[in-house]
């Protein structure tokens, strides 16, 4: 309970203000600081690092192909598994292609595919989670059991089976990744929404005669969006790893195109000599996942603080 929250002392407006109790204005002080300073103060140092990494990779996904020194698939050197050098900053791969260009071209597959798949998974999962929470017992029961059944299939095995059966293509990869992560999003959004449904403002809305759609859209969804965003970030990382894993097994993005996972697989032969061709895509995967995680952690901490004490 926030009975003793210190701010109460300053927000008593209905009684004539007691003599000698000055009202401390708090809002203007926060508004005076510039937008950048506000952003900086919202995130911790680690959160800022995460934000920087994520923004960097998102930018690369868009402008990577434009700034890449060579064409993505072009064989540009006679040396295979070449080391760092002025012509090829990150060395060359097993066919003598420029590694920097390969990574820059691969970013759009990894980031773009994963982003689209995560949007699908979180969107669909949240939608069904809301439906299950606000409608009656039977709908909830059926949806929950259905997604329980889905969750019981290991996501990688499911992805392997589906792709083995239908062949690999970009839309197929996106759908498989989304399908594998919908049940998790459903579970989380349902449990959040069920908790919110018991709150009194939802009860008031029900007693007012509101339709379920209105309750879901206005009373429940805005209050669960913050944890769902944090979950979105986590899911994004899982999907990047799943797609990279699939590519590593040769079931992901097909040659000559390559996402970071396939780059690692292609160049696995260079591992013994410590070639940058195998190290750099792995580093890219690692930085993206670490960056997103740092960003989410700071988001989540911020969210839980704003939730605490009903503020």
């Amino acid at each position, binding site marked *: 309970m*926030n*009975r*003793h*929250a*210190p*701010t*109460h*002392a*300053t*927000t*008593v*407006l*209905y*009684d004539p203000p*007691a003599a*000698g*109790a000055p009202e*401390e204005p*708090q809002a203007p*002080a*926060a508004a005076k600081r510039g937008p950048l300073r506000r952003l900086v103060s919202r995130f911790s140092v680690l959160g800022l690092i995460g934000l920087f990494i994520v923004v960097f990779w998102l930018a690369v996904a868009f402008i990577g192909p434009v700034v890449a020194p060579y064409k993505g698939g072009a064989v540009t050197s006679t040396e295979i598994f070449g080391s760092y050098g002025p012509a090829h900053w990150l060395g060359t791969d097993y066919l003598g292609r420029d590694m920097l260009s390969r990574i820059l071209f691969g970013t759009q597959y990894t980031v773009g595919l994963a982003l689209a798949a995560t949007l699908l998974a979180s969107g669909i999962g949240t939608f069904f989670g809301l439906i299950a929470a606000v409608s009656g017992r039977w709908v909830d029961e059926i949806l929950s059991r259905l997604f329980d059944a889905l969750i019981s299939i290991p996501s990688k095995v499911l992805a392997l089976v589906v792709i083995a059966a239908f062949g690999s293509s970009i839309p197929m990869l996106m759908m498989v990744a989304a399908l594998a992560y919908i049940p998790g999003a459903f579970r989380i959004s349902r449990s959040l929404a069920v908790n919110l449904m018991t*709150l*009194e*403002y939802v*009860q*008031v809305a*029900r*007693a*007012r*005669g*509101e339709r379920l759609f209105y309750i879901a859209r*206005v*009373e429940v969804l*805005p*209050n669960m969006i913050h944890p769902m965003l944090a979950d979105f970030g986590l899911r994004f990382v899982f999907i990047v790893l799943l797609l990279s894993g699939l590519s590593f097994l040769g079931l992901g993005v097909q040659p000559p195109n390559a996402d970071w996972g396939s780059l690692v697989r292609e160049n696995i032969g260079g591992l013994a000599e410590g070639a940058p061709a195998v190290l750099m895509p792995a580093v890219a995967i690692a930085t993206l996942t670490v960056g997103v995680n740092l960003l989410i952690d700071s988001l989540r901490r911020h969210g839980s603080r704003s939730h605490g004490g*009903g*503020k």
Partner: protein
Amino acid sequence: MNMIEVRGLRVVAGASPEPVVEIVKGVDFTVKKGEVLALIGESGSGKTTIALALLGHARSGCAIAAGSVKIGDTDILTLGVKARRALRARTVSYVAQSASAGFNPARTIMDQVIEPALLHKLMTLAAAREKAIALFRALALPEPDTIGERYPHQVSGGQLQRLMAAMALITDPAVVVFDEPTTALDVTTQIEVLAAFKRVIRELGTTAVYVSHDLAVVAQMADRIVVLNAGRVRENGATAQVLDAPADDYTRQLLAATRHPEAELAAPAGARETPLLQIRGLSAGYGRIDAHGVPAVRVLDDVSLCISRGGTLGVIGESGSGKTTLARVVAGLVDRARGEILLDGKPLPAKLSERTLDQYRRVQIVFQNADTALNPSRTIADILARPMNFYHGLCGAAAQKRMLELLDLVKLPASIAKRQPGGLSGGQKQRVNLARALAARPALILCDEVTSALDTVVGAAILDLLAELRRELGVSYMFISHDISTVRAICDDVIVLYAGRCVEAGQRDALSAPPYHPYTGLLVDSVPELRPGWLDSRRASTLTALPPLGAESDAPELCSFRSRCTARIDGTCNVVPPPLKKLPSGADILCHHSAADLVRIQTTETVAA
């Protein structure tokens, strides 16, 4: 000799780049050895912050900025972290408001009660256990020898609060700080706990600081009262002086809010023909429904009531009596098992989905907890606009105008409309709640403990507002409360619920003098009076043991209060269901005693007091 000496204490919240708020603004007071000092004030007055400062502790985000706190001869603010920890529980101990949150559910009570003594290596395990059992006995706990073997969930809330006091007292501390220890308890339980605290403080001669917002409670416990407001001491004096001759305006305001003036009975003129709301034989509950259509857990059992147009019905009972369920059934949020509800003489469907828009509009509900009753992500303007649009199709300028009218009606500034609920105080939120209900232009507002979570002064202001709205708009209320004095202040008719049964129904005046149902009697007697010594005299009168009761017949509808009734009759109460009786005051009660008997029983108690 001064046991506690606080000089110029200042506590601030927030680190320096952020705006700093001063919570405690230079407080001085002293407590003599063996004295009980009460810190009283509204929430936000800094009373808990001061109490924690006595332990050398500031909550996270706060810091003790200046001043000195002397316990005995040591200034604890000059001590280091380690020395302060050694001091806590040994020299100064603390009893928190929520005992259930203060106990670890996975360990037995005894283990936790003796923990401070073992932690500070003050006594051996056996000696500590012995001491704990002696304390259990002194605190009037049932089965003192074995209660320590139980787990926290196996005892009641009032018992847990007393066990927490035992935990605080086990090390024979010089000072005990009680932080609102009875606020979360029912009135009847509160009295038992207070009596136990008072006795043990007196026996051990402990110096105590008692934090509370309730003047009547403080009047029973304290020798001196310090009145706080917004982090400053408003008044510091002996209990009798503060209560009888307050020197400060704020103290007078507080006293006025505690003594609810009784509103005049607004006799609804000629509106007797069709009552607004009529409930007949209502039963409701939770769990699986058996063959007779009765749910496994019955929360309401055969309740009938009637609210006239413009009238106000008070529903009183302890927690678990089914009063909130009653409101939820009327609002359609809980299904009913049996019985019918008539609104304006027409049946009100049990299921929400079968009600018409007009039926939705005419019944509005206002909940106890203002914090969770407003959607935190919408502005006040959005919250108030929705029912106007939904029921009356108002939007744009018309809605804006109506919203300003509503805010004015509940006495909130118009500037509040753009803010979100998080930026409002508890009292303001409750006013917004009321405004939202009024936006529908309802005929009946179900008020579920609307003032319970608020401070005395703020709660009194809300009660005044309710009375005023009723005069101006002619709305009816079903006013649910556990506090008999607030019900007296606003209601025309009253029903008393016990374990889902309506044990007494009558006009408000039926509560002012005996005879009443024995349970009503217990409730009336449990409301602390603003008179020092009231608790002692009351305790003397109610120490009578319960009359023995033999085996029970399996007749279904026995008196539900028989297990706690001091006037029960063996061979009658446990065998035959109580008949419905009419008292001279016009109230109907469910009891075996005749009116004359009840008058005799209840007035001898008062005379003894």
